[in-house]
């Protein structure tokens, strides 16, 4: 039987097992929306308030579930509004399929109403994109899109569908498998390289594991934990990798990089072996590349060959899926008679414990003074047992959340790492809450970030998403202000928000619960009260210390051993 393009579209989603999509209608996608209306029991469509929100929500869904997130937007402004989310997903390797409507084929290139060359616009920030030019290719293109987005190093794939394709008809056939001669990711690591890596691990005197978002994406948290404990090495994680290894375990030495711990950064600096797993030597991690790990040999495991030796020359590269490679490493390690050098490791741990004594994350909460943001995060962590999904915006609050919420499980820390997109947190939290309706999902944000996608409070009301918003309100664009304090002699250019709305009233206007918390003594009670309201969104506006800085810090141009502690 022949189906229309719109019918084929919905059939393809069902074939891919997509239960939830995020989107916003418009002229070019009306036939698709009509079909979604007819089949609303099959595919749940979440109507956002801005297309950027749709893509971030799909990202949140994907990051929490490791399944591809799906967004659907119209042509022109619908498509351009989605670009920030797409670029965000590209930087953080989030599996995403974004469908955009396009003007009918005969109008393409005519400067038609709501026409934009979205395939051209997004080319540098997608893993791949397609313009569908024949309805007969629609199903296979969608199959390819899901395949490309979710395999290898994941990423966003955009499919641009002209309006007349959605009414054209053809036989529907969904391919079961797809093979592409031009796209074959490597999953198994090279055996010889695996042996060389184990050789280095057994020789090492001062080893450190440095792991990233690739471990979470590969679903390799258990394997990583097993390997780390088998080796007895210290482990540090990047911002994107938090939660892969249980943070409360003594082998975990904290996050590394610009706002990493003193012990993690010093361990990197003094290490003789760095084992990088699913991490990409980002500039926020390495600091000054000239001063990066001066004494270490480097093993790098990554599924993307282009990540290897891009920023830092690597001694043993292993291209492959992190999970496969860790399993092979464990097997190889168990075959060997030798074990890591226990005496050397004991000395190394002694040194690390010395660094740990600096207690670099200590802060002083004066119970009669203003609330410190760190205190809010730490209390939230205590009360939720470290089990909540934390969706963060971008800025100081993001760093505090990363430092003080100790994640014990992967996929719980959902943030915009690579692109650093303010406005990510709230829509991402919606996506996570859709995926896990029963779980505690929090949005940690600031008075700047929250206003970038505040309109999504409307979406949260429509779908009764009981997200808990922790707004760490300091009346500043805090991270900008901190840099201006350190590096621009306190000239606070445009980092002060003089006209903040009353967030409590704003939350109430959207039909939610708002709370203002001004005293440290009220923090715990407010959080407990908010969490008790299981079916309500609660906006907690914490009025916090204004000039509060994120420490420790590796200033720009410095090495890992040149941290500012307070």
């Amino acid at each position, binding site marked *: 039987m022949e189906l229309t393009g719109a019918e084929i579209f919905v059939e393809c989603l069902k074939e891919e097992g997509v239960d939830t999509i995020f989107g916003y209608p418009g002229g070019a996608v009306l036939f698709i929306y009509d079909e979604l209306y007819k089949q609303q029991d099959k595919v749940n469509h979440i109507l956002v308030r801005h297309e950027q929100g749709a893509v971030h929500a799909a990202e949140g869904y994907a990051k929490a579930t490791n399944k591809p997130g799906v967004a659907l937007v119209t042509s022109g402004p619908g498509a351009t509004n989605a670009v920030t989310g797409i670029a965000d997903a590209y930087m953080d390797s989030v599996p995403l399929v974004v469908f955009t409507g396009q003007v009918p084929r005969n109008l393409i290139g005519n400067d038609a109403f709501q026409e934009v060359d979205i*395939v*051209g616009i997004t*080319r*540098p920030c997608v*893993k*791949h994109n397609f*313009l569908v030019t024949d309805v007969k290719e629609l199903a296979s293109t969608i199959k390819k899109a899901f395949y*490309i987005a979710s395999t290898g190093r994941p990423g966003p794939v955009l499919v641009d569908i002209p309006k007349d394709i959605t009414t054209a008809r053809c036989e529907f056939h969904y391919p079961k498998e797809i093979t*592409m*001669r*031009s*796209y074959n990711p490597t999953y198994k690591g090279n055996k010889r390289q695996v042996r060389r890596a184990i050789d280095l691990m057994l020789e090492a005197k001062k080893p450190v594991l440095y792991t990233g978002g690739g471990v979470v994406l590969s679903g390799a948290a258990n394997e990583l934990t097993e390997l780390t404990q088998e080796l007895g090495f210290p482990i540090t994680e990047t911002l994107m990798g938090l939660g892969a290894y249980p943070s409360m375990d003594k082998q975990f030495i904290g996050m590394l990089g610009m706002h990493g711990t003193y012990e993690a950064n010093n361990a990197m600096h003094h290490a003789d072996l760095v084992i990088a797993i699913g991490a990409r030597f980002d500039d926020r991690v390495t600091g000054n590349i000239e001063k990066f790990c001066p004494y270490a040999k480097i093993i790098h495991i990554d599924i*993307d*060959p*282009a990540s*290897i*030796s*891009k920023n830092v*020359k690597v001694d043993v590269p292993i291209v492959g899926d992190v999970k496969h490679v860790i399993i092979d490493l464990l097997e190889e390690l168990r075959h060997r008679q030798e074990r890591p050098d226990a005496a050397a490791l004991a000395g190394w741990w002694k040194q690390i414990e010395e660094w740990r004594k600096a207690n670099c994350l200590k802060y002083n909460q004066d119970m009669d003074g203003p609330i410190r943001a760190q205190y809010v995060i730490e209390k939230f962590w205590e009360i939720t047992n470290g089990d909540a999904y934390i969706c963060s915006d971008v800025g100081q609050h993001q760093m505090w959340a990363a430092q003080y919420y100790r994640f014990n499980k992967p996929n719980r820390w959902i943030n915009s790492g690579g692109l650093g997109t303010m406005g990510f947190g709230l829509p991402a939290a919606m996506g996570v809450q859709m995926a896990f309706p029963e779980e505690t999902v929090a949005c940690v944000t600031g008075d700047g970030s929250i206003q970038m996608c505040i309109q999504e409070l409307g979406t949260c009301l429509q779908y009764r998403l009981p997200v808990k918003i922790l707004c760490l309100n300091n009346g500043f664009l805090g991270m900008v202000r901190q840099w201006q304090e350190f590096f621009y002699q306190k000239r606070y250019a445009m980092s002060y928000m003089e006209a903040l709305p009353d967030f409590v009233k704003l939350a109430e206007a959207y039909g939610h619960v708002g709370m203002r918390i001004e005293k440290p003594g009220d923090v715990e009670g407010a959080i407990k009260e908010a969490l008790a309201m299981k079916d309500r969104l609660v906006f907690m506006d914490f009025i916090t210390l204004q000039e509060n800085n994120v420490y420790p810090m590796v200033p720009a141009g410095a090495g890992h051993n040149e941290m500012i502690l307070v």
Partner: protein
Amino acid sequence: MRHVISILMENESGALSRVAGLFSARGYNIESLTVAPTEDATLSRMTLVTRGSEEIVEQIVKQLHKLIDVVKVMDLYQNSHIEREMMFIKVAVDKNTACEAVKRLSDIFRGNIIDVTDKMYTIELTGDRTKLDAFVNALKEFRIVEVVRSGSMGIARGETSLRV
């Protein structure tokens, strides 16, 4: 260092702009680029000439591989290879002495005069880049009206080949 990179890619619309966009987005240099379909109509063959350190060229090759439309990549610099470029050059021969001199130079360089008017000669010349440069140089004393160069094409010598 100058590298000649051969690329076999899907003959899809937009494939060329993916390659060109990659180079501009990542700040790589393109000296020349030529592209045309192969005996298999679904494949295009591109030859791209670039300059960069070993590390940069290694990244370029990896980034090219990463493009979904790219099937195979070969850095010809790693192999013994042949490189050729084609040029059309239009020269004014309005002075009496010029006709003979231009004809003589064209013969020396094994060019072909492919179009003639009483005022213009158009010469076709194939060779490696340096030969073409030398010919343009030799014609400098005449009035060069137009130069069209194809950019380099490359192929590995012997048994080595770039195919699916």
